[in-house]
């Protein structure tokens, strides 16, 4: 059974998750397992439901149906609030505090040790601006402060929504190295990105489109299965295949197979 409490139990188990925002379904019946101790990439175009899925895992999203279980407990339960770190897409830190003051406040909310602040600052290479007000930092530095706040208290699951946007390439490489170090020490990470070239850095990939998961595989499996040279190509191959299957009944009794342009508007 999946819910046996052994170490191989997935970090996140999602069954039949449906989320409705406004009038449209953003996620329609998602089933998903996220393994422990790996860096899992969540890739897909903007508006495909990545953020909504992450919010559901963190437990701040109202859901219509289905279940989300995180580290063996229902998402959002009080016991998980120490164990799940969440970085939103926009840096959610206080502009009118210094980097260190921000981290010190979040540390006190988490009840983590004083030394955690220095550790998080070092991990995100913010030593040089630790005493500066966040409002005076660049976009990339601000998102690193937000990431540093999520590292406080060494959570078991890190949910990171586009943490590498706008960072210089060298820093990006270093952050991915950090993610793998964290995974090596047992942390599970879910990292979203809309940049396909980050796919090869993940242990496992989830490709999303229009509120559904197109693929859930390792990068190597994905390339082997689709015969593509990179993640972008694999994504396209999957889309074509899916669409071909979709269009098959029509194509069979209708010579006009040109209906392929209505793949669908992006669900908001």
């Amino acid at each position, binding site marked *: 059974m999946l819910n046996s409490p052994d170490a191989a139990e997935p970090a996140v188990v999602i069954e039949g998750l449906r989320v409705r925002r406004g009038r449209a379904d953003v996620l329609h019946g998602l089933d998903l397992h996220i393994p422990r101790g790996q860096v899992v990439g969540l890739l897909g175009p903007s508006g495909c439901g990545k953020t909504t899925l992450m919010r559901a895992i963190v437990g*701040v999203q109202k859901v219509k149906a289905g279940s989300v279980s995180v580290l063996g407990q229902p998402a959002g339960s009080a016991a998980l609030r120490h164990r799940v770190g969440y970085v939103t897409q926009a840096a959610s830190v206080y502009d009118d505090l210094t980097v260190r003051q921000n981290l010190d406040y*979040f540390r006190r909310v988490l009840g983590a040790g004083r030394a955690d602040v220095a550790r998080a600052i070092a991990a995100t290479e913010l030593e040089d601006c630790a005493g500066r007000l966040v409002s005076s930092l660049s976009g990339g530095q601000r998102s690193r402060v937000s990431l540093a706040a999520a590292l406080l208290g060494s959570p078991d699951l890190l949910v990171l929504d586009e943490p590498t946007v706008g960072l210089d390439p060298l820093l990006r490489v270093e952050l991915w190295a950090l993610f793998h170090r964290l995974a090596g020490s047992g942390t599970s990470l879910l990292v979203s990105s809309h940049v396909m070239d980050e796919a090869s850095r993940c242990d496992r990939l989830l490709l999303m489109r229009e509120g559904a998961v197109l693929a859930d595989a390792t990068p190597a499996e994905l390339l082997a299965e689709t015969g593509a040279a990179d993640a972008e190509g694999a994504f396209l191959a999957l889309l074509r295949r899916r669409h071909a299957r979709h269009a098959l009944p029509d194509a069979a009794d209708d010579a006009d197979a040109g209906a392929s342009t209505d793949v669908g508007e992006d669900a908001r």
Partner: protein
Amino acid sequence: MNAGRTLATAGRILTQIRHDPRTIVLLLVVPSLLVGLVAWIFTDTPVFQSIGPAILALFPFTVMFLVTSITTLRERRTGTLERLLSMPLGRGDFILGYTLAFGLLAVVQALLACAYAIWVCGLDVKGDPWLLVAVAVTDAVLGSTLGLFASAFARTEFQVVQFMPLLVFPQILLGGIFLPRDQLPAGLKEISDWLPLSHAVDALNAVSTNSHDAAYVGGQVLIIAAFAVAAVVLGALTLQRRTA
């Protein structure tokens, strides 16, 4: 709820404000300036003597309402509230942290305004001036808690500012500053009985004329405090961990 987290939150808010000296000056000086303006307008008339105490209730209340509603709205909009609610911070910790931080500012603000009214503008207080301060502080705290509550119903800064005329102006109009409350038409008098600012004005008038004992003033302060507690509870209920 947890005292450490509440105090950490209050400390964080005060540190934020410390980084913004202009706001501190405005918060502390504007009520006194306005009290001074009213005193100046009514030089050589007995009017300041009769409405001065009520003015002491009005400005701290309004200023704290605005400042708190906008700060908490900003917290909702920048995602920091969502982050905090995904952490082990209780909703009560958040609201009480705000109430403490702004309450402390309200104490300083009310002290300055009362001192200015008495010593500079010559407001004659027959009762205990400390009671005047106590009422003004409770009233300013009420302003903050109402501001916290109002911020839940606004999506933008534009909207939240509109709550001031909605929630604050009727209380000013019916509070007995324009017309003593016992001269209000039937119906309005009863409504004004249910508005917290009316009780603040009654209490301040009672202190300045020494027409009632301290127990009466204490009772009025309790009524105001009850409104503040209600606003805190309602405000905490509006903080949803899960949002659409």
